[in-house]
C-alpha cells in the first residue's frame, strides 16, 4: 500500500466533500422557502411574494448548479480512490446510493428543469408544485445518503461473510432506519432549514439597509422576519436533534464522544464540558479552561450524573478487540484514537457558530418587531454573517463526525487506510487532487462573484407570469425564460 496515495485520497475526500456540502444545505432549505413564497403568491396574489420567489429562486439556481456538478465527483470518488472500501461495503452501501439516484436525482433534476423553463409552459399551481417536488427530491436524497453514512458510523443490518471477505446486506430496513440515521437525518435537515433561513434573513437585511432599494423596504422587512423565524425554529430543531445525537453517539461510538471533549480518563458521573481550553495541542494538559460542570455527562447520557467513558480505557479496549490480526481490515498500526484537537475544536466551532447564528437571528427579530425600522447601521453586516456562520457550522459538523470516526471508515469493521485503492498511483491521486482543488477554487470565485452581483441587484420588478395550459399558449412570443 502506498501511504502517499492514501494521504492524498483522504485530503481529496475531505476537500471535495466539505466543498460539496457548502452548497447542499442552502439547496435543501432554500428550495422549500422558494416553493413557500411561490405558494404564498398563488394564495394571496400579493406580488411581493412572487418577486421574492424569483429573486431567491435565481440565487438558489446559482448555488444549486455548483452543488449538482460537485456531487458527481462524490459518487465517482468511492470507486476511484477507495476501491477496496467499495469492494468491501458495496453490497450494503451501494444500494442506498443507487436508490438515491433513481428516487431523488431524477426527481430533482427533472422538476427543476420544469420549474426553470416552465413559467410560460405550465399552469401556475403545477409550476409551483414542481419546486415542491424539487424539495422532496432533496429530502429523499438526504435520506439515502445519510442512511449510507450512518451505516459507516454504526453498521447494522449486515453480516460479515468470511468467504467473500466483505460485508453483506441482510436487512435493508435496518439500514434505512438505523438509530444513528433517525437522529442524523433530522439534524441535517433542520440545519439546512436554518442555513436557508439565515440566507434569506441575511440577504434581505443587506438589501433593506441599501438606499437604492428603499422603495422595497416593506418587502425586505417581511423577508427578514420570515428568515429569522425559520432560523430560530430550525435552530431549536438542530439543538434538540443534536442532543439526541449525542446520546446515540455515546452509546454506539463512545470514542467519538470522548474525543469531542478530549476526555482521557473515564468520568464516573458529572463529567464537565469545556467551552474553551488553552493547553497542549493533544489536549492532555490544560493551562486555562472555561468549563461547565456536569454538562458533558448530560450531553452524553441525559443525566448530570452519567458516566462518560474516556479515551484511554476505550483505546485499550479497541487494541485488545481489533489489534491482534495485522491482516484484518480492522487492524491499524497506530492506536484507535481520532486526532483529538480536530475533534475537540470542530465540535465547539460547530456549536458556537450555530448558537451565534441563532442569537443573531433572535436579535434581528427583536430589532424589527412590530414593523419597526432598526436604527442600527450594522444590520446588513450582521445579517450577511449569519448564513456564513450556519454554512461553516455544517462544515465543522461533518469534519467532527467524520474525523471522530477515525481510524475507521466503517466503525469497528474497516479502517480508512485499508479502504484505499491499491492500484492507484501517487501520481494519479495527486493529479486528481490538484486538478479538482484548483478547479474548485476557481469556481468558488466565480460563484461568489455571481452571487454578490445578483444579491446587489435585488429583486426585479413584478411581472405577471402568464397562466397557461400544459405545454404553453400557442403563440410565437419570446420565451418568458431562456438561457
Amino acid at each position: 500500500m502506498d501511504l502517499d496515495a492514501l494521504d492524498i485520497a483522504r485530503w481529496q475526500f475531505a476537500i471535495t466533500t466539505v466543498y460539496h456540502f457548502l452548497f447542499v444545505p442552502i439547496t435543501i432549505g432554500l428550495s422549500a422557502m422558494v416553493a413557500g413564497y411561490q405558494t404564498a403568491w398563488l394564495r394571496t396574489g400579493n406580488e411581493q411574494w412572487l418577486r421574492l420567489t424569483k429573486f431567491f429562486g435565481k440565487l438558489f439556481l446559482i448555488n444549486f448548479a455548483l452543488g449538482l456538478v460537485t456531487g458527481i465527483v462524490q459518487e465517482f470518488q468511492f470507486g476511484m480512490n477507495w476501491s477496496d472500501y467499495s469492494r468491501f461495503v458495496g453490497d450494503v452501501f451501494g444500494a442506498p446510493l443507487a436508490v438515491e439516484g433513481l428516487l431523488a436525482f431524477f426527481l430533482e433534476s427533472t422538476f427543476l428543469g420544469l420549474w426553470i423553463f416552465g413559467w410560460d409552459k405550465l399552469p401556475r399551481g403545477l409550476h409551483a408544485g414542481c419546486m415542491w417536488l424539487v424539495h422532496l427530491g432533496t429530502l429523499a436524497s438526504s435520506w439515502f445518503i445519510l442512511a449510507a453514512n450512518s451505516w459507516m458510523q454504526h453498521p447494522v443490518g449486515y453480516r460479515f461473510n468470511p468467504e467473500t471477505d466483505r460485508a453483506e446486506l441482510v436487512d435493508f430496513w435496518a439500514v434505512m432506519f438505523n438509530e444513528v440515521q433517525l437522529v442524523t437525518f433530522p439534524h441535517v435537515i433542520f440545519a439546512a432549514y436554518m442555513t436557508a433561513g439565515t440566507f434569506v434573513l441575511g440577504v434581505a437585511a443587506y438589501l433593506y439597509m441599501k438606499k437604492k432599494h428603499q422603495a422595497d423596504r416593506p418587502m425586505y422587512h417581511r423577508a427578514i422576519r420570515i428568515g429569522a423565524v425559520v432560523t430560530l425554529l430550525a435552530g431549536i430543531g438542530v439543538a434538540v436533534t443534536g442532543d439526541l445525537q449525542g446520546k446515540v453517539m455515546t452509546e454506539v461510538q463512545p470514542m467519538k464522544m470522548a474525543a469531542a471533549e478530549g476526555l482521557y480518563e473515564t468520568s464516573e458521573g458529572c463529567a464537565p464540558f469545556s467551552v474553551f481550553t488553552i493547553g497542549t495541542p493533544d489536549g492532555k494538559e490544560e493551562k486555562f479552561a472555561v468549563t461547565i460542570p456536569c454538562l458533558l455527562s448530560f450531553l452524553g447520557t441525559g443525566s448530570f450524573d452519567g458516566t462518560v467513558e474516556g479515551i484511554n480505557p476505550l483505546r485499550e479496549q479497541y487494541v485488545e478487540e481489533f489489534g491482534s490480526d495485522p491482516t484484518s481490515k480492522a487492524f491499524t498500526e497506530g492506536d484507535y484514537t481520532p486526532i483529538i484537537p480536530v475533534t475537540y475544536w470542530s465540535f465547539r466551532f460547530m456549536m458556537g457558530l450555530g448558537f451565534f447564528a441563532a442569537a443573531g437571528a433572535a436579535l434581528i427579530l427583536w430589532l424589527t418587531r412590530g414593523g419597526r425600522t432598526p436604527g442600527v447601521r450594522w444590520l446588513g453586516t450582521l445579517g450577511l454573517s449569519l448564513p456564513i456562520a450556519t454554512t461553516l457550522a455544517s462544515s465543522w459538523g461533518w469534519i467532527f463526525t467524520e474525523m471522530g470516526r477515525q481510524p475507521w471508515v466503517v466503525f469497528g469493521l474497516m479502517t480508512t487506510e485499508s479502504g484505499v485503492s491499491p492500484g492507484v498511483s501517487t501520481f494519479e491521486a495527486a493529479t486528481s487532487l490538484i486538478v479538482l482543488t484548483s478547479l474548485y477554487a476557481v469556481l468558488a470565485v466565480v460563484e461568489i462573484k455571481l452571487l454578490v452581483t445578483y444579491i446587489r441587484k435585488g429583486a426585479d420588478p413584478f411581472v405577471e407570469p402568464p397562466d397557461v395550459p400544459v405545454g404553453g399558449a400557442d403563440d410565437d412570443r419570446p420565451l418568458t425564460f431562456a438561457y
Partner: protein
Amino acid sequence: MELTTVWFALIAVLWVGYFCLEGFDFGVGMLLPVLARNETERRVMINTIGPVWDGNEVWVLVAGGATFAAFPEWYATLFSGFYLPLLLILVALIVRGLSFEYRHKRDETEWKARWDLAIIVGSVVPALLWGVAFANIVAGVPIDADKEFTGNLFTLLNPYGLLGGLVTLTLFAAHGAMFVALKTDGDIRHRARDLAVRIGGVAAVLAVLFLVWTQLKTGTTLTAVVFAVAALALVGGLVAARAGREGWAFVGTFATIGLAVIGLFLALFPDVMPSTTDPAYSLTTTNAAATAYTLKAMTWVAVVFTPIVLGYQAWTYWVFRKRISVHHIPTADLADASR
C-alpha cells in the same frame, strides 16, 4: 432469469438511456461553434436542451450507483482502473453543467465565450472518452488475480478503443444535429439537418468498422443481428433526414445508439470486465455481483420507480415539445434573460 442477469440487463438499460439522451445534448454542445452563426442562434441551440440536459445526465449517476450496488467489484475495478479518463470526464461534466446555468448570467461577450468553450470542450471530451472506455471494457483490459486493473492510461488508448471513441463522438454529434433539426425552426433547422446527414455519413462508416471489428472479436449470432439493425437504423435515419422527416431521423440515430449499446452489452455478457491477462481473472456477472438479497431489494425498488421516472421524464419532453426559433429568444437584455 438469474437476478445477476436481470441487473446486468438493467445496467445496460441505464447506459442505453444515458447515451441516447445525453448523447444528443453532448452533440448539441459540441456543434455550438459549427451550427450557430451568432449569439441568438447559440442561445436557440442551448435552449433546446436547457430544460432536459440535467435529467439526461442523471442516467449516468444512476448507472454508476446501480453498478456499485449490483456489481461492487465491477464498480471498484472500473473506477479505480480507468482513473485518469474518468477524472477528465468529471472535469468536463463539471464545467459543462455549470456553463448552462452561468453563461446567461452576465452580458459580456468574453464571459459568454468562455462558457461556450466550456460547453464545447465539456461535450467533446466525455463523448469521446465514454466510447474509449466502453470499447476497452468490451475488448478486455489487463486485470490481475486480485481484480485490480494493471494497465495505465496508454493501455486504453489502443486502436480499437480510439475507434470506439470516434464512433461515440461522431454518432453523438449527428444525434445532436438531428435534435437541433427537430427542435428548432428557421434557417438553423435546415443547416442542422444538412450537417446531421454529413456527420451521420462519417459516423456510419466508423460505426460499421467498429461494430464489424467487435463482431469479429467477441460477437455471437445475436450481436450480429443487433449490430446489423443498428446500422440499418442509422441509414434509415439519414435517409429520413434527407427527406426532411426530422422526427424519424432522430428516431433513427436514437435507435442506432441504443442498439449499439445493447449489442456491446450482449458481446460482453456474461463477463462484465474481461481480463486480457488471464480469462480466469475476468470479472463476470457472477463473481462481481452483490448478494441475492441486495439484488432482490434493489429489483423491487427498480420495478416500482423506474416506470414513474420514465413517465415524468417523458412528460417533460412533451411539455417542451415546441420548436424554438430565433424570435423566441428574449432580447439580450440581462434583466430579461435572468428573469
